[in-house]
């Protein structure tokens, strides 16, 4: 398949080109991190516990960073295995004693064998000793898979639609200063690494970090999701536990 014949491939090729542009000045001494995590949870859709595995690669140097992530459904109601992947790249802009991050992300999700969700994301964020703040916006596209779209091609149906832009936010507070060996952080946000809720559906999580040594960090997170908060008729939706490790190579 060539990029000329497939608009999705064309977009992907364009994205790779953008990411490639981010690296011409990369120093060989940049940091590489790999990360792996397991989610175990229960929600109104899962019919019992679900298990997800996510793996990430992160590269950064003084002014630039790039990250990619993959999520696999080990046990879940959706009949897919590769749930989601993303590619993100951005700049680290010095602002006095702080660093402001500005980035772009492409996020792809297969939520059913024939259905896809794609998000284009623009975000900015910064980190203080105790606070982590991120703001952004995403444009969400729901579409048929390329295979399903080809099968439906002779019918007069729309094979995709775009939602209006959505406001993304995350505000987290650490109990201890950032460099502490252990930490607990509480966050309110409408997004996770592979999932972006509508802005009117905030999620909360508590995270515990423990640094084993300079190159290995362990963490666990507890997430709670409710529905209908801004309908002013709140209801439980789900909770999950995340356990993960970050290795700095």
């Amino acid at each position, binding site marked *: 398949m060539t990029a000329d014949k497939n608009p999705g491939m064309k977009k992907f090729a364009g994205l790779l080109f953008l990411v490639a542009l981010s690296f011409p000045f990369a120093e060989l001494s940049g940091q590489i991190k790999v990360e792996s995590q397991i989610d175990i949870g229960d*929600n*109104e*859709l899962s*019919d019992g516990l679900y298990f997800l595995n996510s793996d990430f690669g992160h590269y950064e140097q003084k002014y630039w960073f790039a990250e990619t992530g993959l999520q696999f459904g080990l046990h879940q109601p*959706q009949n897919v295995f590769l749930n989601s992947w993303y590619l993100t790249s951005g700049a680290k802009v010095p602002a006095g004693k702080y660093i402001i991050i500005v980035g772009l992300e492409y996020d792809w999700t297969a*939520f*059913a064998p*024939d*259905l896809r*969700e794609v998000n284009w994301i623009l975000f900015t964020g910064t980190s203080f000793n105790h606070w982590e703040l991120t703001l952004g916006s995403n444009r969400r596209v*729901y579409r*048929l898979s390329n295979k399903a779209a080809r099968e*439906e091609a002779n019918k007069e*149906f*729309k*094979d*995709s*639609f775009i*939602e*209006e*832009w*959505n406001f993304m936010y995350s505000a987290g507070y650490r109990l201890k200063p950032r460099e502490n060996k252990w930490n607990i952080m509480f966050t309110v946000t409408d997004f996770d690494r592979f*999932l*972006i*809720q*509508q802005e*009117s*559906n905030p999620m909360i999580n508590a995270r515990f970090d423990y640094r084993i040594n300079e190159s290995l960090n362990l963490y666990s997170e507890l997430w709670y*999701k409710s*529905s*209908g*908060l*801004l*309908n*002013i*008729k*709140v*209801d*439980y*939706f*789900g909770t999950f536990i995340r356990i993960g490790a970050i290795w700095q190579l």
Partner: protein
Amino acid sequence: MATIIKFGRAFSIIAVLFCVSCEDVDFTGFFYNNNPVNDRVKESLEWNKSSPEQSITIPGNDYTLLVAGDSHVGGTVNLNTFLTQANTTGASGIVIAGDLTTGHKEDYDVFKHEIDTKNSLPAFFVVGNHDLFFDGWNAYFDYFGSSTYSFKVNTANATDLFICLDTGSGTLGSEQLEWVTNLLENERKNVRYCIVITHVNFIREHRTSSTNLLVEEIRAILDLCYRHSIDLVITGHDHNRSEQFFNRTHFLTLDALEDDFDNASYLSLQVKESGLVTTFVGL
């Protein structure tokens, strides 16, 4: 710590002021739901067992249903206009897609009185978030019974399936999702058109502060719509009409019927052998 305590005090005072002063919104719903969706659905499914599935029989092949949303009674001017037009224009039934009332018992009384005295057509109701405020679920259930049910329209040559879902607290919940999945798997192949009516919007076609379902549920619903060729999904909640198409499914959001709403309208849904025709009728 002192800042947190001050913030907590200020928040409590504001919350109490809201709770005391606002007659239309029940701010306790930010924190607590004494009738969560899975409980409501269990009550509804029990109610369905003791009540035969409702149906409308049409002598010909084509028919019209009038569908409104967000009447928010107290006020009844627009509701009366809607009922008058429904009962004088040859419609076969009416549907109101949630937020029938403000949730207050006295407003339920007014709404029920208007329906009982000014409507002679088969009438179907969906529960909305406002209907659940102020313990409104008890009044809804007493007057209308189930909030999760289906009804059929039988024409000379075909049967159409209408599914009414409870999204009053922004989620379908596991019980309702299982029910609707089973219903579609068993019934969809036997009917001509399948139309879903609920209150909270599934997809967001324009910028709005209205709450949608969580993305995980929207994905599950899109999958159901795709696999079972749902023809039309009608929602209220946002008070601003919008339309979106995805594969075979037409997603349509209604204007509000509420009195004093600038663009109040209802939907005329003409069901024909050749397809579904939707027309907004302004008030």
